[in-house]
């Protein structure tokens, strides 16, 4: 039996995780990936806010409706020629009596490649299971809740909205291209179709999931050399005890589920 036992109920655990999740702040990353047929560079940020904590014995903290607010900035190069054929109208000459030879101009339209910038944000809700993990790092016992596995994030309506945003971004990006007008609707439709829902989820999943998976939520830190009393004068040095072992678990003690920290000390 452990010498020291400290326990909190689910209500206190809720407060604890509210604080810890808020303390994580905004995470961000950038890189390059694929968006359907396009190579894309991205910068993405995500901010977690806590859901509903459920303590499940013996070692799981479930957070339901964990909210992730995310924002992504995408840039990709759109070669219009990949979607609308270049136009080559050769010169045609005809001989007109009394006038001579009349030729039409030769027309060559080679569609340019244009950069497309898309900025979009949304949120999603997910449920994660945290395993209660213990480690001794640099003389500090750390109890953390670590997201188990890779949660499957459901982007839902976000994907349709993001596809629409991409369509608008394409329209804006090619607006300056001469003679694009008649082809604009076709171009936007073709680009959106080429990316598709699969292309979006193929991009968003891998770049946004890390904001949730593997995340460590600190539960408590206990120095292995714990200060019982601070120094308070020339004859009263600080008093320490050694925390020999520390443990953490979820106990089902009806009617409560409780997060319990257990410790043994020596003078």
């Amino acid at each position: 039996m452990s010498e020291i036992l400290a326990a909190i109920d689910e209500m206190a655990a809720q407060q604890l995780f509210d604080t810890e999740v808020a303390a994580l702040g905004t995470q961000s990353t950038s890189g390059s990936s694929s968006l359907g047929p396009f190579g894309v560079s991205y910068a993405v940020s995500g901010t977690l806010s806590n859901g509903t904590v459920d303590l499940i014995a013996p070692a799981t903290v479930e957070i339901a409706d964990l909210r992730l607010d995310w924002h992504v900035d995408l840039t990709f190069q759109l070669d219009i020629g990949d979607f609308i054929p270049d136009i080559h109208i050769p010169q045609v000459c005809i001989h007109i009596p009394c006038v001579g030879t009349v030729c039409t101009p030769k027309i060559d339209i080679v569609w340019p490649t244009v950069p497309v910038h898309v900025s979009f944000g949304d949120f999603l809700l997910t449920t994660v299971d945290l395993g209660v993990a213990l480690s001794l790092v640099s003389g500090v016992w750390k109890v953390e809740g670590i997201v188990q596995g890779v949660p499957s994030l459901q982007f839902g309506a976000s994907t349709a909205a993001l596809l629409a945003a991409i369509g608008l971004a394409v329209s804006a990006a090619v607006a300056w291209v001469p003679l694009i007008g008649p082809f604009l609707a076709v171009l936007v439709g073709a680009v959106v179709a080429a990316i598709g829902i699969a292309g979006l989820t193929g991009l968003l999943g891998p770049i946004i999931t890390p904001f949730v998976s593997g995340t460590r939520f600190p539960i408590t830190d206990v120095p292995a050399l714990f200060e019982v009393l601070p120094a308070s004068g020339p004859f009263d040095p600080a008093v320490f005890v050694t925390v020999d072992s520390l443990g953490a678990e979820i106990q089902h003690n009806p009617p409560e589920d409780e997060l319990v920290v257990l410790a043994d000390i020596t003078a």
Partner: protein
Amino acid sequence: MSLTETSEVFVAVEESALNDLITAVCTTRPHLLHYGSPAFVPASSTSATQMAPIPFPGSSGLQWSVELGIPRLDLFKQDEALPPELSLGAGQFSLSTVVTLCVDCASRGKNDPRGEDRPEHEHEHDPNHDPNRDDKPWRDDRDDWGKAQNPMCCRLDVYAVGHLVSTWAGGQRAIGFAVDSVEIVDIEPNALESVIECLLTMILRSVLATLSLPVTALELGAFTLTPTVGPLIDVNRVLARGDF
């Protein structure tokens, strides 16, 4: 039954851990357990606390010292044997320790004139008196400090029962230890035993008044506890409940 019951936080400290905490305090700050006049304690330090000699007419003051061993606590229910005069009730702790009482049995201090005693007020006209050294409320015989001439000591096994009290330490909520009664074994006659027990009760109360443990130490700072119940003695442990 849940640990937290209607509260949010629960903390329990087994008596072995409580004794570890007390041992840590007493070994780091042994002066909390060791007091004496200058012949025994030449200066206050981490090891001991210097106090005044006991004033007494016709002498430069009785030199003395009191040193307690690290107290060992047994929380209700009783695990450690107690003298029959003591019983451990619910919510109480028992305490056992060894007290060493010493007096310096020297007949006179080396500066005392033989055969007559000098009135205290003549001290002011003493040409050898250095007012700068007169920073203690007792006779300045510091050349003799730490040199008890004829120390006589006795060791007494002391048992006590007491209860926890709420107090403050370093601005934090803390638990303190209050003595209810003291028993010394095998002193005759009974009147002497009563006097010694009374003396040691007062000493123990004073010493324990300086010995307190912050509530944060009881739960190693794992969770922030604002006690609404306790700390109190449960069966062989101290527990507290409160808000997060």
